[in-house]
């Protein structure tokens, strides 16, 4: 029995080895004889369209080429690819849920394993000469299967991976190391793939070209008056809520300029339960404007949910307002248009922000960031219509700047992307895709945690001259970081909100002070269970404490701040009360001489928590304006905690410095009655001091003073600390 099964086993083994050998020979033969190309990539149109553009290019060169498109069922490719007429097969795949032990990770592993197996069969059967992938999680199993077969010497194919964004996605960054060529859109990305990256640009299908205005006008259902500047605002094929709403809001501010501008608005096709692009826009218009105003608006504003001949609209326009996905940027660049970009925040690697920044650095665009706000209990991204209108008008009136931007836009990205890619594939050296373009020194944005570590270190070093703008290389970064921090404030987890509060302080985002104050005064209670364990409000103690710290860093004082600060003195959480006292003495210049503040602080001296008493005593030293302050402080001479007595003495010293009281014999006698015994002391280790001095001396001699490097070192250290 055993013998038979062994023989059967060996026979099966022999059979499968010879089958694989046969398939491998067949693959080699087929791949060298005909042109066979396997395309993959999808999920969104942004991944599918470049693949189709490349296929178009290959077909123009070799019309008999056989194509096979591999995608995932029910995604963008199943519609677009069918319409384009390529044969389509499906495999299983799923987005990467992150490295942790969870059911979704297990499902991911199972699906991708099955997907790899399916892809292997497809590859062995189709025997492609090239595998062309455009990213998106669809392409992962196909690339993995191809790599596996290649490494087993069964596959005879070359793998090309096209990366559309300036920051590669996780899977692309990983798989890109092993494929034959990574075809890149942005020069920044070269630093991710130093060995096999080539800069080719973004392949676009042939239909979009610049036409003269008259010709473009022909196919459109509306007429644009001749002397108007045209703005085309759109949020991609699906539409973007932020942009749609901002445009509607901006119209009010554009009415005075209605004889100069013309707005073409593509609202997008999104009709999900959550957001219906065209209906929502319509409703917003009706709500915000009176019929008379709507009449005025109709004069310079047209709206449509989708433009089938988008090339014509582009040709008409003088300025774009859009998201900064790779596809949009490339179309804009191809037609040499200037743009106002509104990047979508909090995407993986912040790639829309990075794309937008790349275009801005090239001089072709301006960026507006969206705010995250809570409106009627729903978290939304929002852009103020006023800002948008203001920016649009400023650009349209500055014709020189607009022309300059248009020129820069034209040179921003590589042209002839399809031709360049083909030259890479056929290896005919028709284009030079390597040299001439250096990998730009690429600095990824800091994560919120890294940013916090970096800024708080610098702030602690030099609190009086702290300015985050000087610490970051690019002033744009700060603007984006501010918006990102503000976004955190509306998160559900208090840990995120807490981080947001700290970052708003450290990035000096003073426009958000009202929000911070609102959080400080928010009295929404937590659940009963948490309350039982000692919790109090939704904006937990740490948040309220950090709001007060942020207020000190922000260093802005007005009536609202004063009102909230006064309330914080009575907060149920002791750290908030003590920080309120610290903040009060920080703003002592504004508060001194105000009777109610003095009394409130005096009451804090009775606080059950000694931390609060200490800070209150120091604050009284800062705020007191007559000898009653001295009397109050002298009363603490027998306090139980030495830190309180110490603080009282410090307060008296401060009163002396501020010349509220003058030195006198009585003062000496009075302070002499303080209990000076203490339960604490600072040890002094002579040998450690000596050693430290020696080291410091040596280091100074070796390095000299280099304050400029200090900031850089700080960033590196913060990043390392966070990532390790």
């Amino acid at each position, binding site marked *: 029995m055993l013998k038979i099964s062994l023989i059967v086993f060996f026979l099966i083994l022999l059979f499968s080895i010879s089958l694989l050998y046969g398939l491998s020979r067949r693959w080699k033969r087929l791949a060298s004889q005909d042109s066979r190309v396997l395309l993959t990539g999808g999920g969104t149109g942004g991944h599918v369209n470049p693949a189709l553009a490349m296929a178009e290019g290959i077909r123009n060169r070799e019309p008999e080429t056989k194509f096979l498109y591999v995608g995932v069922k029910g995604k963008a490719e199943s519609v677009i690819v069918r319409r384009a007429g390529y044969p389509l097969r499906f495999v299983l795949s799923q987005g990467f849920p992150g490295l942790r032990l969870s059911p979704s990770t297990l499902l991911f592993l199972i699906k991708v394993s099955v997907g790899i197996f399916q892809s292997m069969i497809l590859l062995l059967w189709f025997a492609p000469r090239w595998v062309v992938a455009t990213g998106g999680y669809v392409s992962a199993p196909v690339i993995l299967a191809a790599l596996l077969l290649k490494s087993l010497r069964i596959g005879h194919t070359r793998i090309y991976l096209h990366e559309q964004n300036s920051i590669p996605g996780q899977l692309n960054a990983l798989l890109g190391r092993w494929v034959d060529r990574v075809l890149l859109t942005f020069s920044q990305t070269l630093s991710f793939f130093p060995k096999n990256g080539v800069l080719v640009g973004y392949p676009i299908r042939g239909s979009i070209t610049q036409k003269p205005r008259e010709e473009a006008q022909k196919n459109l259902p509306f007429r644009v008056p001749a002397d108007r500047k045209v703005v085309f605002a759109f949020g991609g094929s699906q539409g973007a809520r932020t942009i749609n709403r901002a445009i509607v809001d901006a119209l009010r501010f554009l009415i005075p300029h209605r004889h100069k501008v013309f707005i073409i608005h593509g609202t997008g096709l999104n009709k999900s339960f959550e957001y219906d692009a065209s209906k929502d826009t319509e409703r917003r218009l009706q709500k915000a404007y009176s019929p008379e105003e709507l009449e005025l608006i109709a004069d310079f504003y047209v709206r449509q949910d989708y433009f089938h001949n988008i090339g014509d609209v582009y040709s008409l326009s003088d300025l774009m307002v859009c998201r900064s996905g790779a596809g949009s940027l490339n179309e804009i660049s191809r037609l040499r248009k200037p743009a106002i970009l509104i990047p979508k925040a909090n995407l993986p690697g912040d790639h829309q922000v990075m794309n937008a920044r790349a275009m801005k650095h090239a001089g072709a665009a301006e960026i507006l960031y969206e705010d995250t706000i809570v409106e009627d209990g729903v978290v939304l991204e929002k852009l103020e219509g006023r800002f948008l209108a203001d920016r649009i008008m400023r650009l349209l009136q500055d014709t020189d700047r607009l022309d300059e931007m248009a020129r820069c836009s034209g040179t921003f990205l590589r042209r002839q992307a399809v031709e360049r890619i083909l030259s890479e594939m056929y290896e005919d050296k028709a284009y030079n895709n390597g040299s001439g373009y250096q990998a730009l020194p690429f600095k990824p944005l800091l994560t919120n945690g890294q940013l916090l570590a970096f800024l708080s270190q610098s702030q602690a070093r030099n609190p009086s001259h702290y300015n985050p703008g000087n610490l970051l290389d690019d002033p744009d970064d700060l603007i984006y970081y501010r918006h990102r921090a503000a976004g955190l404030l509306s998160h559900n987890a208090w840990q995120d909100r807490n981080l947001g509060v700290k970052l708003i302080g450290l990035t000096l985002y003073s426009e958000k002070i009202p929000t911070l104050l609102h959080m400080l005064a928010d009295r929404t209670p937590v659940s009963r269970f948490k309350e039982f364990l000692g*919790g109090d409000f939704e904006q937990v103690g740490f948040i309220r404490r950090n709001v007060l710290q942020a207020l000190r860093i922000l260093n802005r004082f007005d009536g609202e701040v004063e009102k909230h600060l006064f309330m914080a003195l009575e907060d149920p959480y002791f750290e908030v009360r003590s920080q309120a006292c610290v903040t009060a003495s920080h703003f002592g210049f504004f508060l001194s001489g105000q009777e109610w503040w003095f009394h409130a602080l005096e009451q804090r001296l009775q606080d059950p928590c000694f931390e609060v008493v200490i800070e209150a005593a120091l604050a009284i030293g800062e705020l007191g304006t007559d000898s009653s302050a001295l009397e109050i402080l002298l009363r603490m001479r027998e306090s139980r905690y030495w830190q309180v007595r110490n603080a009282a003495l410090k307060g008296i010293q401060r009163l002396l410095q501020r010349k509220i009281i003058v030195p006198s014999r009585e003062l000496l006698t009075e302070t002499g009655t303080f209990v000076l015994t203490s*339960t604490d002391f600072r040890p002094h*280790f002579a040998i450690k001091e000596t050693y430290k001095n020696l080291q410091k001396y040596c280091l100074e001699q070796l390095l000299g003073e280099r304050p400029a490097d200090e900031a850089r070192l700080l960033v590196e250290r913060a990043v390392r600390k966070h990532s390790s």
Partner: protein
Amino acid sequence: MIFEISNYLLGISDTFSFLRLVNYITFRSIMAALTAVAFVLIFSRHFILFVHRRSLLDQVRETGIDSAFDKRGTPTMGGLLIIGAVLVSMLLWGNWKNPFLLCSVAGMIWFGLLGLWDDLSKVRMKSGDKGMSERRKLLLQGLFAGVFAWVAAGPFSPLGPELATKLYIPFYKHPLLDLGPYAYGAFIFLFVLFVCNAVNITDGLDGLAITPSIFVVGVLGVFAYVEGNRIYSAYLHYPFIRDAGELTIFTAAFVGAGLGFLWYNAYPAQIFMGDTGSLAIGGTMAVVSVLLKQEMLFPLLGGLFLVEALTSQVQDKIGVRWLGRRVFYRAPLHHNLQHKGIAETKVVIRLWIMSGILALIALATLKLR
């Protein structure tokens, strides 16, 4: 070793009759303690230098308290000295056929090695926060706790089948209830995990962990003596546990080693015990308490460890991670006292006093039942 040799010689001839002394537990205990003290005092300096030369220095955790700064670079892993002293002393004076001794030594060595691994990885990562991951640490601790729970509550328990699964509480003569092997096993499992981690948390200031440990282990030694003695146990209404007297010798060696270690660990410390020491001490205390059926005495006897562990866990898990506020000013207890403005030396001595009082109360339960 000496125990075996002496008994062998006693069997050969009457000339060696003075060697009968080794059959007295008190004599062997005292000798074991003295040996352990001598061992630590003799080898400490060499050990400290050895550790210093290898740069096996303490890595500071960021606690936000100033005084921790001055402690950077103190040699660590002093636990090895304690473990070494106990082992050498027991090699000389112990009866290695005794299951109680074997269990306790196994616990000490397992937890010691675990702590050593943690210490070494902290040194390698150059950070006091990044030793062994918490999960792995708990897993390895749990492995021993599980095996030990089986030994103590299972069919081969050194305590005998009648006693093995009964639960005794202080101030009450009779067993409170018989938990049965599974519930009692689970209880032992949790108890071991809790105690060893409690000592680990307490080990935060110079000399803070070692002296209370000496108190606890010393009192447990007295209990071992009573319970291992047929007459005293009958008089004090304790279950007589045959062979448990051997634990007196073990605990005596431990107390000796602890005293020797305190010589160098007293403020300002020249060496820290590290996780090697704190886990080994915790593991030993847990194992010995279980073997003497004094698990429920531990919350009283080791009250300091209990409070330290609870404050730390409440502050971190409930307060900072979940409620978003501090429940205490700082945690664990000793940092809270420091934060209130009490110097390290004073905190340590006050906590010694507290743990001494608790040890006395625990000792009083011998008679107060």
